């Protein structure tokens, strides 16, 4: 049997259950794919031997009559999740060689359900970025190529760029991602796959390297809405080790996938029309609305008045929390420690050792953000910046609460552009604009999903985003499934194993 690596999780599970192939054969096909397309840079630490061993164990369990939801399914794990005995770097030099002695709660849940881990996926350093060009371990390449410039390497988006690239190139059946301001949804859109950011608190953050704790949320990335639903069912759940993990039962996320959208009300927020957005993105958005209308949904225009305040507020809240979270990297307890500078035998002070370690261990974008964070939290500026941003955040959350009194889901484009070239990457604030459509939902903590809905005129995938009520992932996935069915997106990337 060939091309097992191209199966969806649902199809692979069915094939495994029927005995059409073994978990070892399925995993071997992914390992071969990872070898063939290693130039994508999707993995920081591939673990093929551990994967094949785990696949054998899955086959043995199946023979023994065990049946768990992901038994023998090969997945990639974003290198932000701590994995016991396997290096976890957060794509930073400062964590090079860090081998956790514990397993994150989300990956523990996936292992409980029988998943096979293929290795640790590349990302932007500490998940800070939208292009996967800030990793200490090299850029990730998008497996898609544009029609006009097929030789130009494109970014996969970020920060979960390795996850998106690996899923799109068929190196794994699904992957974990994390989303702080769009880090699941934006790369999913750039790589033509489906990515779900659950409601804040739905998945435990314990054991995930922290970026901005009031925003960080783990979620699935896969090649169908159904596969995301299956993965979320395993990833989600209460965890006493995360004080913000919510103690509500995990429903069957696949239960209502075929329920359709008849009678549902979908909102199109008028503020998501931004200057300079390509006409084809606007067209795809309207086309997606029409697809939902054709299936019986009522589509109405709504207003989310504080949409454009979300990004500036995010660039206060996220760096502030990052500066606090990243204070732990000091060269004392784990990771990289710098040598004394300029051939001196000793540091002049302990603080000098910390600052030299951090100056050498963190990349430029991380340094920028923790300096911004330290500045907006400093005496005299805390109220003007940090508290102001948190007040604006209340307004953003209120916009969504009011919108969901009128509509069941909100439809928007995922990104204001298709994937761009690694060498034509925008800088600074312009780069931040990538997340203009994804950040508002992060600030409000509500769930969002991006799915591929069409191709740009240059042959690159474009995503649309659906946003739902807090903890109504079941309802969100139901609308997403309808949209996926109508869009019928079957295009595949040029680089595919």
């Amino acid at each position, binding site marked *: 049997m060939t091309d097992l690596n191209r199966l969806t999780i649902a199809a692979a599970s069915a094939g495994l259950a029927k005995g059409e192939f073994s978990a070892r054969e399925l995993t071997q096909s992914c390992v071969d794919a990872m070898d063939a397309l290693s130039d994508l840079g999707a993995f920081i630490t591939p673990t093929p031997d551990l994967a094949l061993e785990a696949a054998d164990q899955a086959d043995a369990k199946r023979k023994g009559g065990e049946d768990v939801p992901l038994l023998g399914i090969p997945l990639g794990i974003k290198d932000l999740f701590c994995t016991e005995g396997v290096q976890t770097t957060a794509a930073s030099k400062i964590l090079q060689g860090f*081998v956790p002695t514990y397993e994150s709660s989300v990956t523990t849940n996936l292992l409980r359900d029988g998943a096979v881990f293929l290795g640790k996926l590349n990302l932007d350093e500490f998940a800070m970025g939208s292009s996967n060009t800030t990793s200490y371990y090299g850029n990730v390449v998008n497996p898609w190529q544009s029609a006009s410039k097929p030789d130009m390497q494109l970014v996969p988006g970020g920060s979960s760029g390795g996850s998106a690239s690996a899923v799109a190139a068929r190196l794994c059946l699904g992957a974990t991602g994390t989303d702080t301001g769009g880090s699941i949804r934006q790369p999913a859109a750039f790589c033509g796959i489906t990515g779900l950011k659950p409601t804040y608190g739905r998945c435990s953050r314990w054991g995930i390297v922290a970026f901005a704790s009031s925003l960080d949320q783990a979620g699935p990335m896969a090649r169908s809405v159904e596969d995301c639903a299956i993965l979320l069912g395993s990833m989600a759940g209460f965890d006493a080790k995360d004080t913000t993990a919510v103690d509500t039962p995990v429903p069957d996320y696949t239960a209502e996938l075929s329920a359709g959208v008849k009678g549902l009300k979908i909102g199109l927020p008028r503020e998501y029309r931004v200057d300079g957005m390509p006409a084809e993105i606007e067209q795809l958005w309207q086309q997606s609305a029409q697809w939902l209308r054709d299936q019986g949904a009522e589509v109405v225009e709504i207003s989310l008045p504080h949409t454009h305040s979300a990004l500036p507020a995010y*660039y206060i809240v996220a760096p502030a929390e990052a500066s606090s979270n990243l204070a732990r990297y000091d060269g004392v307890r784990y990771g990289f420690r710098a040598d004394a500078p300029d051939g001196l035998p000793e540091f*002049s002070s302990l603080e000098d050792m910390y600052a030299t370690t951090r100056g050498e261990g963190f990349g430029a974008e991380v340094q920028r953000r923790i300096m911004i964070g330290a500045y907006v939290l400093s005496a005299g500026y805390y109220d003007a910046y940090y508290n102001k941003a948190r*007040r604006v955040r209340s307004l953003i*959350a209120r916009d969504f609460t009011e919108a969901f009194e009128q509509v069941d889901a909100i439809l928007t484009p995922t990104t204001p552009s298709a994937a761009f070239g690694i060498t034509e990457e925008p800088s600074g604030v312009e780069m931040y604009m990538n997340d203009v459509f994804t950040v508002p939902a992060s600030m409000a*903590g509500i769930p969002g999903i991006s799915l591929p809905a069409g191709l740009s005129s240059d042959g690159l995938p474009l995503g649309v985003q659906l946003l739902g009520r807090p903890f109504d992932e079941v309802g969100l996935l139901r609308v997403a499934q309808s949209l996926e069915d109508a869009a019928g997106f079957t295009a595949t990337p040029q680089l595919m194993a």
Partner: protein
Amino acid sequence: MSITRETVEQAARLARLTVADADKDRLAGELSAILGFVEQLNAIDTSDVEPLTSVVGATARMRKDAVTAGDEPERILANAPDRVTDFYAVPKVVE
């Protein structure tokens, strides 16, 4: 708001970062651009809005104040750059 070299030095000190002299002007420009971008928030009236502290409205859970883990020096020190017996070690410094 325009960030000066001195402010860069202060932020670097607060963030415990050694920043090369040659990078300070560049950083001043980059930080100014970010702070200039976020300044648009000042146009929003938030006088009657409380800062958002939790998106899920959760209250802190209570637990028994009891020791639940410990006595695992090997697991805790496994990644230490340097150690002496069961302690983290730091380089000798001249204070």
